[in-house]
């Protein structure tokens, strides 16, 4: 009795999980399918699911109209650059908060996180003006700076939780062994925290890759990443769903592939500390 009940339960839970998974995945699947339709099929009613004239013409059209590789490269520079810059700031910051906490460390962490609670548009005008006056508008370096700052709280928080798991005695041993602060962080702390740092890097690259608010508002042509590339298909041209879908698919494909290969790291990283 008990066994069959638990088997039924397992089936139900599995079905529910698949349903939720498919629901979440559906828009992406639909975008992917639409990118292979003609513009006519794309807006057909009732919608055509799998039986339509498959075509690659949208991809050709998109590539003809805009330089995908340029946007792709901008996205790579922006996400990798901002991640590396954030790490360079966050590793020492997380080190000090995890191993030499002061009385205000907890408040500091909360305060940093609170900056993520504010709607970004609230500081758009001052940011825009600062970027304009410093000549950072529509530059890659400008994007790297803004994305570093936007994601820094999350990077510090994640690293802080990983570092907290590392026994302080090991760092003290390094200090006794004659390691300078730099050597202690470089040769002892960082290698021990590699799994945590790796998942932080992955998550941050994904966040930066998908960031749309600042990238759309602070770029025009030169530094525009893939988010701007997609956006350019949505508004001015009316309803070219098939081309928009082709552009979206091209924009999300790299990060999807990366996420697929690193999902083990990501899951481990995101649940780290939660299940001990």
């Amino acid at each position: 009795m008990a066994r069959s009940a638990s088997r039924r339960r397992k089936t139900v839970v599995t079905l529910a999980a698949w349903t939720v998974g498919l629901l979440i995945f559906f828009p992406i699947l639909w975008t992917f399918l639409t990118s292979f339709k003609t513009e006519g099929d794309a807006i057909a009613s009732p919608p055509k699911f799998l039986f339509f004239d498959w075509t690659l013409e949208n991809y050709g059209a998109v590539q003809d109209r805009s330089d995908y590789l340029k946007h792709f490269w901008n996205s790579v520079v922006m996400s990798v650059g901002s991640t590396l810059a954030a790490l360079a700031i966050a590793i020492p910051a997380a080190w000090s908060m995890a191993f030499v906490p002061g009385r205000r460390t907890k408040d500091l962490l909360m305060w940093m996180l609170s900056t993520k609670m504010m709607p970004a548009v609230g500081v758009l005008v001052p940011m825009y003006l600062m970027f304009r006056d410093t000549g950072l508008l529509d530059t890659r370096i400008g994007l790297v700076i803004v994305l570093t700052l936007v994601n820094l709280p999350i990077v510090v928080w994640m690293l802080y939780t990983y570092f907290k798991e590392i026994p302080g005695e090991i760092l003290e041993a390094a200090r006794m062994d004659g390691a300078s602060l730099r050597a202690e962080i470089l040769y002892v702390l960082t290698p021990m925290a590699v799994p945590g740092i790796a998942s932080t890097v992955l998550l941050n690259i994904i966040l930066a890759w998908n960031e749309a608010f600042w990238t759309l508002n602070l770029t025009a042509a030169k530094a525009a990443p893939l988010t701007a590339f997609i956006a350019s298909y949505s508004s001015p041209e009316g309803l070219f769903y098939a081309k928009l879908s082709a552009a979206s698919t091209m924009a999300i494909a790299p990060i999807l592939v990366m996420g697929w290969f690193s999902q083990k790291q990501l899951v481990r990283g995101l649940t780290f500390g939660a299940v001990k």
Partner: protein
Amino acid sequence: MGRIVLDKVAKRFGDVEVIPPLDLAIENGQFVVFVGPSGCGKSTLLRLVAGLEDVTGGTISIDGQDATMMPPARRGLAMVFQSYALYPHMTVRKNIAFPLRMAGASAEEQARKVSAAAEVLNLTAYLDRRPGQLSGGQRQRVAIGRAIVREPSAFLFDEPLSNLDAALRVGMRLEISELHNRLKTTMIYVTHDQVEAMTMADKIVVLNAGRIEQVGSPLELYRSPRNRFVAGFIGSPKMNFIEGAEAAKQGAAAIGIRPEHIAVSSAGGLWRGTIGVSEHLGSDTFFNVNGTGLGAAITVRAGGEVDLHHGDTVWLTPEADKIHRFDREGQRIA
């Protein structure tokens, strides 16, 4: 070299004074043990010497140099931690070589010193393993190896054997003592285990609530404890304390007598009582004798083969010259 002098060293954590100002001199080559109950400040005191904590008052000098403000790396000391604190991502070889690497030693020098240390500690076969693949005793030896290669002016041990099982602990105790005999380097060893203190130390520092209760050789502490705390802490099983009329007869507020200094007889003696719990160790037997009218039960040591059992009536006679007398404040009366 390795002469360490603490002058009015004090430590507070916020409003809590964990170590009131204390003075202590540790001579070159001595094996000094800090012993005391948990929370007595012995580990904190060691960490102050190491430089892992900052003093809030006083000075620490190492080999005549003021080291009070020196960072740990520059004090020339090596430390072995209770948790071993090995670098889990490095092989044994790299763990042991780490201090040499930090000191900028050549690859050739690193290899030579690591293999010499591994030889001494029987670790040669494990040099390419990681700490996670070693037993507790082996890990502790790696930690000691890492300390040896630095050729420090003093070794600091923070309860290094607490994580080992009893049999291994005795073995490692001997190894550390042998190491001291061979290297003749100053060692400071922190433990809460008075047996470790008695067996290893040249000099024992008994700490209680951050204060030094007494400093002396193991036998000095055993023979003439300065107060009731030391008397009760040093020696196993614990010294018996008797208060009241029996103590007053000796002109003291309390008298203390160790279990091994009381003769047990079924024929006759000074105090009469009944055997309660008895512990047979083979070599010795410890009896808990109740109903003597002296207050608490009296623990006595008898030979291993003594034919006495629970409920038997026995007579106890203390050796008169081994009785310790204490005044009302718990201080020894000479």
